[in-house]
């Protein structure tokens, strides 16, 4: 039996494509339609109200507050991920004779936070940043603090605390990808540069940095999307509180749906969140496809 390659290709892809359409596209269409309805779960009645959900949401302070929380969260997270990720990747890229095995061991160890579940990470953070927990206890016994700080319950400290948690948990991913990029830079470039007398700093500025810029861009976009839709770490540590200080858009959607039971409104909020991520997603996908065809 001989088929045309194009048909075999499609045949191979179809089972996956069908499943994916079933679990993503169909629900997405459903929720999109739902966003034009008033749907309060206990009433079981849905009535078409056009764009009213959207107009109502855009007028509430709660939505814009969550929006700004999400943006601040995103911005800080991306900055720390890229800055720390690049620094640690550069550190781990240093090679010394006889230490290659040690270097690989470090590289493997550093992945651990990325492998643990969000729920596990959240519970560790809660015990570390507990009012009587290790962080306060350390600061107090070294006399940097007189009274314990309520890290996750203070209006000003809660957002920085969850940012710290998210930065810590996802940092390994950024280190590994950046390290792989740096390792792929041809060594001849450095050899030529050092023969020409370029200093280490100049080698970094004119060889390493230009080489990692595209990776930084891609990672920045992936991180924007990931941190925009982050749910479990914040939900399990602060639950959006205190007084909404850490309530980002996904949490707002969750509470609107599963506490207020207003599914139509939640759907509209979710669609708006999706529109924000979609803008970044389009750039990211364009870049990926470009590299794909190279």
């Amino acid at each position, binding site marked *: 039996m001989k088929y045309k*390659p194009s048909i075999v290709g499609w045949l191979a892809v179809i089972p996956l*494509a069908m499943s994916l359409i*079933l679990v993503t596209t169909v629900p997405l269409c459903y929720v999109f339609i739902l966003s034009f309805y008033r749907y309060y779960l206990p009433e079981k009645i849905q009535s078409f109200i056009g764009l009213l959900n959207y107009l109502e949401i855009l007028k509430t302070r709660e939505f814009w507050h969550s929006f700004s929380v999400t943006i601040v969260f995103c911005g800080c997270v991306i900055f720390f991920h890229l800055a720390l990720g690049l620094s640690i990747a550069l550190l781990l890229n240093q090679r010394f004779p006889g230490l290659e095995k040690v270097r690989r061991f470090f590289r493997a160890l550093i992945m651990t936070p990325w492998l643990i579940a*969000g729920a596990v990470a959240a519970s560790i953070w*809660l*015990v570390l940043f507990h009012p009587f927990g290790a962080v306060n206890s350390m600061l107090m016994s070294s006399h940097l603090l007189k009274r314990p700080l309520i890290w996750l319950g203070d209006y000003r400290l809660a957002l920085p605390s969850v940012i710290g948690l998210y930065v810590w948990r996802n940092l390994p991913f950024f280190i590994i990808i950046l390290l792989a990029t740096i390792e792929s830079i041809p060594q001849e470039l450095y050899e030529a540069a050092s023969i020409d007398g370029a200093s280490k700093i100049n080698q970094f500025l004119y060889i390493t940095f230009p080489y990692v810029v595209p990776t930084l861009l*891609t990672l920045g976009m992936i991180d924007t999307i990931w941190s925009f839709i982050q749910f479990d770490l914040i939900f399990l540590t602060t639950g959006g509180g205190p007084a909404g200080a850490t309530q980002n858009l996904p949490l707002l959607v969750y509470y609107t749906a599963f506490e207020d039971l207003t599914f139509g409104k939640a759907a509209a909020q979710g669609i708006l969140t999706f529109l924000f991520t979609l803008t970044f997603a389009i750039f*990211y996908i364009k870049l990926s496809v470009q590299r794909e065809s190279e």
Partner: protein
Amino acid sequence: MRGLSKNSMINIKKYVWLTACIVVITIILLPIFWMCSIAIRESGEVFTIPPHWIPEKITLVAFKRVLNDPVFAQAVVNSVFVSLSVALISVFLSAIAGYGLSRFKFKGKNTFIVYMLSTQMIPPVLLVLPYYLILRKTGIYDTYAGLIMTYLTFTLPFCALILRGFFANIPVDLDEAALIDGCSRLGAFFRIILPLSLPGVIATTLFSFLVAWNQYLFALVLTSSANRRMLTVLIGAKLGQYNIFWNDLMAIDVIVCFPLIAGFFLLQKYFVRGITAGAIKI
């Protein structure tokens, strides 16, 4: 600089580098160390000033309590069953699709890749709304089947792209040789390509197991009974209690994450290759 030979300069640099690495890794791993350290101490020693990094008295009672808890055992069974099913189904579907994507040129291939990538940009919290409503209507709410189906959202595209990367490394000549020898396409795939990329396939399976194992939001929303409670939801529920037993909770954490960390260490090489070469185009 004059007094130092070139060799001792390298030695100094070596020690500076080692110290820097150890400091960075200690900071990154400290929370995980703290988790393990609390799991093996007595409850009176959880909150002390200054913190006791190494407990004064090491005890395994927390592990004993957790392992004897039927609620925990049920959650382990649930999580293992769901994650294993998700891993096997998604690797099976993605292996076939990944083979197609790595071997054939066909119309709409790039569109399909873009489609797979774009499904990853949908906020999970947006998808969970229709899932909740649809699963309630169709009667598969609070069942394994419902969870497994919805978990595929995360794993399918990722696995397909990773596996395509692994298959692309195997020369096409091997397929052709098998075809000439009378193998069917499917036979060539199962007898030649799959065994050759076995480590990659195992790493991908472990990866999708990990994604399913760690998933929280879907498990929280799409189940309600204690019989269908996943491990992550169990941890979340314990965090919401007024009186938290930190030793027991950290013991659960250790049991939940260590098998996977161990698996990762064994397959580390393939993981890194899969992530960098297949899934994310850098």
